[in-house]
């Protein structure tokens, strides 16, 4: 669907949409927070942000001013697998925009003053997360689910690890990672393929050569039983809750079947969880299950937020429902329904140039086969209820769950102490960012 081109070691993709009036740019530097040295968690994230915070030719302020003058935007995002620089510009300003982008990628210098400011903002962000119960629940769910695995370390780092990062750490990181061997470039929108190729060549020219070196993740730890973490936050009117476990990534052929199953477990309005928790009982405004897959591993999680009085019945119902699905699979009708949703929704996932660019980059980023998007509907359609049951039995683990709750501990503990299958129950104050030790 979107052929991958090569310019030397650089891989690139062009997603045309004439008449859009915009060009979207995405530059992926492979290798992200997974490379953070122990004790310096948050390094890739901070180094990525510093890409656009000062070069040998431009101060941070001049970069901001130039981008603003063009009516354009740039920002960086870091995942475990890479640093993504994304931008948007009107076609008539593409040339000066690329001038800034190549400068940032090719001669970023991590100025001390800009670094101190950016680090201070990162620390503020980490603290501000405590204000958002949903974010807090997800943060602690991931720490608990991935305990003992590299993904236990958050992309944005810990408060103390970010404190330890110095500007020269960022410079070293960028020098090691920002080269042609790790570079993937995508342009989408109102420009032709020749212009895209020329833009890719400009970006590539600004970078040194280098060999591709992409770290891989180990399999998830094998943890048994229910592990529950109460994030103690007083004065809440409802309980934010995330329940789930590590699972497979894009490189596992079972993933499409797991996506179909998730659709009918809690991925849609008509899923079992949404019907039982929201539609029938009105226990939570939202309830959703999801599979977030990386290259080698992923996570299955259910998120909802009942009132305190509904917490225990909602938790029991959710775990019963997951056991039922894992043990018995889904009905033929549910599987057909889930397949219809995924196949019919497929055009919507690719509706805009930006959507198509993201999917094309995901193919590269996650090592999906080149024909993944072309064959996705067909692969989904080829599955039947037995395939789904087999995959659920293999990959859904309703008796081995990590559960993170954000609520006043004094009120919530009596409600969850006797959960069947509970092997650990811990409490952490909401203003801590790590799991409790011991």
């Amino acid at each position, binding site marked *: 669907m979107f052929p991958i081109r090569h310019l030397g070691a650089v891989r690139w993709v062009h997603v045309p949409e004439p*008449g859009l*009036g*915009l060009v979207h740019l995405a530059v992926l530097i492979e290798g992200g927070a997974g490379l953070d040295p122990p004790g310096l968690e948050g390094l890739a994230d901070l180094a990525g942000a510093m890409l656009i915070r000062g070069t040998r030719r431009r101060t*941070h*302020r001049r970069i*901001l*001013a130039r981008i*603003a003058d*063009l*009516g*354009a*935007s740039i920002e960086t995002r870091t995942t475990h697998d890479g640093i993504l620089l994304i931008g*948007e510009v*009107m076609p008539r*300003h593409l040339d000066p925009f690329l001038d800034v982008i190549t400068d940032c990628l090719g001669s970023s210098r991590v100025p001390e003053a800009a670094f101190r*400011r950016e680090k*201070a*903002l990162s620390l*503020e*962000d980490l*603290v*501000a997360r*405590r*204000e*958002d*119960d949903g974010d807090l629940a997800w943060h602690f769910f991931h720490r608990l689910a991935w305990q003992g695995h590299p993904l236990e370390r958050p992309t944005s780092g810990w408060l103390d690890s970010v404190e330890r990062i110095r500007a020269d750490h960022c410079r070293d990181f960028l020098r090691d990672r920002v080269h042609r061997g790790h570079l993937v470039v995508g342009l989408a929108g109102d420009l032709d393929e020749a212009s895209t190729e020329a833009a890719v060549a400009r970006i590539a020219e600004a970078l040194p050569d280098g060999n591709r070196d992409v770290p891989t993740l180990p399999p998830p730890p094998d943890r048994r039983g229910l592990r529950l973490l109460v994030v103690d*936050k*007083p*004065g*809440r*009117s*409802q309980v934010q809750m995330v329940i789930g476990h590590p699972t497979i990534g894009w490189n596992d052929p079972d993933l499409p079947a797991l996506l179909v199953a998730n659709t009918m477990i809690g991925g*849609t*309005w*008509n899923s079992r969880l949404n019907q039982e928790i*929201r*539609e*029938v*009982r*009105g*226990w*939570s*405004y*939202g309830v959703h299950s999801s599979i977030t897959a990386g290259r080698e591993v992923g996570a299955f999680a259910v998120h909802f*937020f*009942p*009132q305190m009085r509904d917490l225990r019945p909602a938790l029991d119902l959710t775990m019963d429902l997951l056991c039922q699905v894992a043990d018995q699979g889904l009905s033929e009708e549910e599987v057909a*329904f889930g397949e*219809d*949703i995924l*196949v*019919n*929704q*497929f*055009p*919507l996932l690719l*509706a*805009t*140039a930006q959507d198509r660019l993201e999917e094309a980059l995901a193919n590269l980023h996650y090592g999906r086969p080149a024909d993944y998007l072309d064959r996705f509907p067909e692969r989904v359609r080829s599955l039947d209820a037995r395939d789904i049951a087999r995959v659920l039995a293999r990959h859904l683990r309703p008796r081995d769950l990590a559960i993170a709750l954000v609520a006043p501990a004094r009120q919530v503990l009596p409600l969850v102490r006797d959960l069947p299958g509970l092997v650990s129950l811990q409490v952490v104050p909401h*203003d801590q960012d790590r799991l409790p030790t011991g």
Partner: protein
Amino acid sequence: MTRSDEVEGVRVETVAGSSPGLRAVRGRLANGLTLLAMEDHSAPVVAVQVWMRVGSAHEVPGQTGLAHLLEHLMFKGTPRHPKGVFDRLLERAGAQSNAVTSFDCTTYYETLPVQHLDLALGLEADRLVNLTLDARSLDQEREVVRSERSLRVEDDPDGHLEEVLYGLLFPDHPYGRPVLGVPEDLDRLTLDDCLAFHRRWYCPPQAVLVVVGDLDWPEIARAVARHFGRIPGPREAPPAGAQAPLPPAPRGRREVVRLPLQAERLRIGWRTLPIGLDAVFPLEFLHVVLFSNEASRVHHRLVEKEGLASQVEGASDPMALDGAFWVDVALTRGARAPEAWAVICEEIRRLAREGPHPSEMRRAQNHLETAFRRSMASAESRATQLGAFEVTAGDFRRAFRFLDHLGRVTPEDVRQAAARWIDPERAVVVVGRPR
């Protein structure tokens, strides 16, 4: 196409757009329903949106939250499509659908593969006039709305501050009351209240149907006529829009709210202008020059230079009857709201005195043009623009007029707007202070 064109009973009234690729058509059915249509052949999808000209501004005191509760209940079924069927049919067809209630309107929307246009139109036409409700559904959905209010207001400092700010900006006016309703009102709403509200406001002349997608105009018109053309017009004249008189703009109100925050938060607002006036355009420039991006004056001072804030956001928020201009500042730990407010006042007064630099005007023009292009980047966002301007400003063409006007706003317009509309003396300032 001319004004006299008629397709299958849809009378074409207006054709307009900023370029051939962005041309929209307004048509009218005999029953009074307004149709806005735009061809978008960039993907095999279609966006269908029903904009009802009724929102929380049309509620009477004591019944706050009624428009929003009814929005939830609109998914509960009709005799032809009983409870659950609506969502099942749409979801199976690959639709992404939902609804949203605001002060001025209520919007029901779905985006789906283009071959399922008839399904979406049939379901929307059915629930517009044939909604059935029962007490059990009402009670369930009341619980869901309580949960939504906990999520968005009671457990969310930002939502809480917004509610306080709008309450102070619009005292004793529907714009000052929460769209989700106050809990005591929500508890009291009955099935009869909901049904009466539906009967009163949900009829073809109150609806603007927007269809944007991979279809030609005649195909859209025929499909719309097939599903909505048979709905009779109302026997009585449609009700007038929200008529609540606007209270005088407050002057210099200050409020401190204790919240579970890690650092102080500053939420500032001013009353401005309704969306239908050209005088709102300089407010967009004001927003860009002062607040909207990392290069803006206030962001530079507060975040980059003085380290008092980690984030500055804001917006000009023009509505049907009046407008608001608000700014939200997340302070860094240890910084105090009065320090940040003093910087903001200084920058506003400087702009009101000296006006923007020509380079800031060019920057704002480019920024706003990019924002316009982004708002036209998908069938769904195009439909949202058309529907919002038609319902709140009275004419979808204002979506394009904004682009035409970018080059006409002068530095003096922006200077005057700063002096007149965001005078620090008139500001309503709400400080969120950590408990």
